């Protein structure tokens, strides 16, 4: 398959993620959208790794290793992020981010 398909799909997924982060008000949905963006990047990385391997580059597997790093970091981020969301919920019985407006001058 030509690599353009992957690029197109990834950009669409990434944009859906950005839209979700900007427009949704539920902290957990926002977090899911960030994950969607990271996975769009993973898809892109794997596609490009294949593309460069086909073009004869020997170090193209590096991009696939990068994907594993991204997965691990995303898991770490979710672990800390969900802990913070739980604290938000305990404090205000809601995960709506509109209530977070108390920090101002």
């Amino acid at each position, binding site marked *: 398959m030509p690599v353009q398909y992957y690029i197109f799909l990834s950009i669409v997924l990434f944009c859906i993620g950005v839209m979700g982060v900007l427009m949704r008000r539920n902290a957990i949905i926002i977090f899911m959208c960030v994950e969607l*963006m990271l996975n769009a*990047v993973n898809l892109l990385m794997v596609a490009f790794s294949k593309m460069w391997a086909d073009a004869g*580059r020997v170090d*193209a597997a590096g991009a696939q290793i990068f994907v594993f790093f*991204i997965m691990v970091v995303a898991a770490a981020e979710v672990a800390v992020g969900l802990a*913070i969301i739980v604290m938000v919920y305990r404090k205000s019985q809601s995960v709506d981010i509109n209530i977070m407006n108390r920090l*101002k001058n």
Partner: protein
Amino acid sequence: MNELQLIPLLPFIILAMASVVTILLIAFRLSHTVIQVTGFLMMCLVVFATWYVRDTLPEEVPPLFIVDGQAALFTGVIIFCVLVIGLFSYIYFEEREENPKEYYILLFLATLGAAILTISQHFISLFIGLELLSVSLYALIAYLRNRNNAVEAGMKYLVLAALSSAFLLFGMALIYMEAGSMKFSGIAEKLPQVSSSPLFLMGLGTIVVAIGFKLALVPFHLWAADVYQGSPTPVTAFIATISKIGTFAVLLRFAQTIHLQQYPLIIAIFSVIAISSMIVGNILALRQQNLKRLLAYSSIAHFGYLLVAFLPGNEAGTEAAAFYLIAYSITLLSAFGVITLLSSREHEAETLDIYTGLIWRRPVVATILAISLFSLAGIPLTAGFLAKFFVLSAGVQQAVWLPLAVLILTSVIGLYYYLRVINTLFGTSGTADVMQKTVHPFFHVSTYITLVVLAGMLFWIGVFPGLVLQGIRLFLLLH
């Protein structure tokens, strides 16, 4: 890769061990004081290790790292900052939280992330370093979960940092597609063929978004004031100094390796960001009544100034940027140290009312705050003045006139709000001071001494910059 190549990484290995040692100390239920002292000694060990490996520099550890003089310089500044911040943390957390020990694990991990950024020359190490820094920072910001809206600040930083790292990755993927390499030098080789491709430029643009977010540059600055205000004061000092030094170091290395400054489009984008940061930061700070928020907006403006040193992309610019970062971090550390000292168990000392007439009640502390504000404003005889002067002279060499003009004009605006705070310090005292009894005299005294030394350094660097400049040049030659 052989074992000889591991030797230049020794300081970073010790830094990573510091957090493991801290975990073990907590497992053996040792006291806060023991952990604090051990952490201090570990950081001193990192400094000694850097000194020990100096002869092996510069050394490349392919493909991820390069340890050269520039990296050693920025790592040195980072370690210096974490030593001071660790000291401030003791009195701050001892008063507030029953269990402040895990704080040090996160502090050392975040420092490791920033240190890795200074030596990275590959997208993987850049990403790992940046995430090590940000994930530790999420927890650090929300550490005092029951007070001061810390959770709200943590949540804001979490969402925006996660968003920006997704942008960073997307940019990396696009650049990898065009260049076929994730190593900075590999990208530099392919650059002449791909520099006009739209996907490559888009990738570069999204990376600029992520870096701009980390450095709190306009228009990605919206988190800064809230996070500065909501997080514990030592953590605010950490975000303002270490996290930004690390990010700026990696931006500098990326730009140097791929010769970013030879593209007029990139120069234009960075000029716009620098100019808007200087203007917006200074204007938003004008009406602030909260010292932490004021420092947040002033740091936005200061990184705008720093970008002016980054724009020329020459040797003088790098030197000026390194000098600026050193002067700026000493200044901010002394300002946040004063806030830490004045904060009581119930209240952060952040509203300006608390500072009314401080000079009559606690003359030493007030003088230190006044000196650091003078340095931020760039008054002669302080380090901040010379830092700005070197930035200006680096900019004049390459004739970037518009950002320079904005720098000078906005510095004058900046003078207004720094002097307003100093004016408050000298006002007539309304509130009688409730002198609290100090819980830990030894750490209080050492914090006092550190603050006095920092203020002294501001004067010393401001009057005799020769030694510091010589040191910076010596380090930068090792590449």
